[in-house]
């Protein structure tokens, strides 16, 4: 019975203490409405409400919940283009992230393999990668807009509605792909370089063909590194979505956040931040589960 008690405390109570402390600090620095009756210029008594506090415009936790309630309780409702339930926004954002992320994986993994396998390839492309890697998504997005300014792709999907990509959508996907590619590229390259010489000797002694060496020896040996890269890439892809949606004004969780900031609806900003955080955490947990599943060594 003792371990059950400890288990509960460790997994539920301790995190709750942390969350409780944060909410308390939030409550302390947030503004409160104070109503007072004052005499105005004409001598009438009027009720004036004003906000006071360390940061007077920051809504209290209770106000935040009150304002967020419709978005959380009806998570799939669509009242307008930029007024939808939280999970609906999340779905829109995730769709965009998934597209950019898969492009990143499809490009990043082979590039990583080439970097790991060939010294010449590394010498040619490593400087470019090192230069492009630290560039912020905020800098890539305008370039994406320019690149796809006049582009409008329609993808024909059999037995379903055609999907049309607008310039802003393509720019967002481009930004997500190019920003989230680097961890996959670099981790794959490190993984390939870390393959023990023994495995390569086995392939040489057995005279495995190039494709067999790749798929029977190199890829399985690199898999753990690749998945670490995939996981980091997904984290970055989710980071980039907010910036991409903010700048393009697309409906989604980041677009909603920016719109609500412009509409002075601060409670919703907090709601968005929490949602982004929770989804990001969930994605990371998911990826680490996949990573554990594909552990080959």
């Amino acid at each position, binding site marked *: 019975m003792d371990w059950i008690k400890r288990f509960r405390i460790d997994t539920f109570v301790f995190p709750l203490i942390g969350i409780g402390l944060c909410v308390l600090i939030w409550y302390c620095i947030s503004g409160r409405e104070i109503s007072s009756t004052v005499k105005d210029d004409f001598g009438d008594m009027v009720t004036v409400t004003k906000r006071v506090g360390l940061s007077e415009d920051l809504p209290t936790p209770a106000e935040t919940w009150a304002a967020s309630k419709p978005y959380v309780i009806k998570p799939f409702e669509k009242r307008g283009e930029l007024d939808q339930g939280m999970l609906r926004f999340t779905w829109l954002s995730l769709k965009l992230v998934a597209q950019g992320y898969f492009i990143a994986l499809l490009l990043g993994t082979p590039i990583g393999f080439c970097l790991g396998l060939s010294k010449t390839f590394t010498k040619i492309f490593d400087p470019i990668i090192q230069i492009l890697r630290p560039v912020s998504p905020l800098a890539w997005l305008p370039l994406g807009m320019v690149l796809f300014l006049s582009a409008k792709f329609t993808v024909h999907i059999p037995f379903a509605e055609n999907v049309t990509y607008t310039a802003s959508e393509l720019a967002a996907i481009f930004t997500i792909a190019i920003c989230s590619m680097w961890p996959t590229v670099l981790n794959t390259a490190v993984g390939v370089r870390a393959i023990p010489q023994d495995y390569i000797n086995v392939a040489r*002694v057995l005279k495995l063909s190039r494709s067999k060496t790749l798929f029977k020896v190199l890829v*399985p040996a690199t*898999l753990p590194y690749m998945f670490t890269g995939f996981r980091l890439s997904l984290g970055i892809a989710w980071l980039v979505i907010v910036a991409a949606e903010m700048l393009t004004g697309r409906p989604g969780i980041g677009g909603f956040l920016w719109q609500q900031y412009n509409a002075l609806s601060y409670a919703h900003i907090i709601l968005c931040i929490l949602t982004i955080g929770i989804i990001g955490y969930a994605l990371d947990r998911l990826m680490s589960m996949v990573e554990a599943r594909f552990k080959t060594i």
Partner: protein
Amino acid sequence: MPFLQLKNVNKGFGPRDKRTNVLRDINLEIAQGEFVAIVGYSGAGKTTLISLIAGLLQADSGTVKLKDVPITEPGPDRGVVFQNYSLLPWLTVFENIYLAVDQIFPNWVKEKKRAHTEKYIAMVNLTPARDKKPGELSGGMRQRVSVARALAAEPQILLLDEPLGALDALTRATLQDEIVRIWEQEKRTVVLITNDVDEGILLADRIIPLSAGPGATLGPSVAVDIPRPRDRKAINHDPRYKEIRRKVIGYLLGEGGKPKLVISRKLVLPDLIPEDLNVARPPMFARRAPKRRAEEKRETIELG
């Protein structure tokens, strides 16, 4: 015509201007079906020698020939059992061996390949562990898988690179018996690399010492004329055993031993004047600590 022939082989590593010569003037001839053990110091270049025969490395000069054909690249006609097993950890025992079988006999039907794989798993007594991954096996079992994989490819020559080096003494003894049993069953040519003279004498037809590196070379070959089957316990009292052992160890410690190494270096020894406890403790911040002088000393050590 010898089966395997190495002639005036030299091999070094490093860039051209400061190349360290690992093997020098290696001459070796092995007949078909012979079991030869090469014994030497660790770090002498034993693995380099086996890599040359396997074709994983190329000699700087001299020739390595198998059945009069120069060896230029690795191939399935030479089965290698590596020192550290070299099993692919993501494949099971069966899959590791099947990978080799599938590669060497692509024209066989699937059932034949599977049966062939099973046969060699059974030969090394691993049938109960056939669906386990190498990570779940003990060191001895992994080495047996490695042997089975090499044998399943039906090589003309089996190269064993310190196959039992990482095992405990008891497992070692069992595997030694197993290697002899398999060798007698299959009658393949075997080159065994080891650092254990007793192991060499117990297993091989002929034992050749490799002198200490750098620039290691093979010493005189000693025939092991002790009749098989050899009994591990009785062999210790055999006068021929003692004679062979004396010859091999005599070469390794004498002529083929490590060259005398002279190291001369300047040493700076910490020369301390102890703290003077007779003086009363000084007031705060003043020091009453040991004083230090440096003393220089030149010392020459001869390592034998």
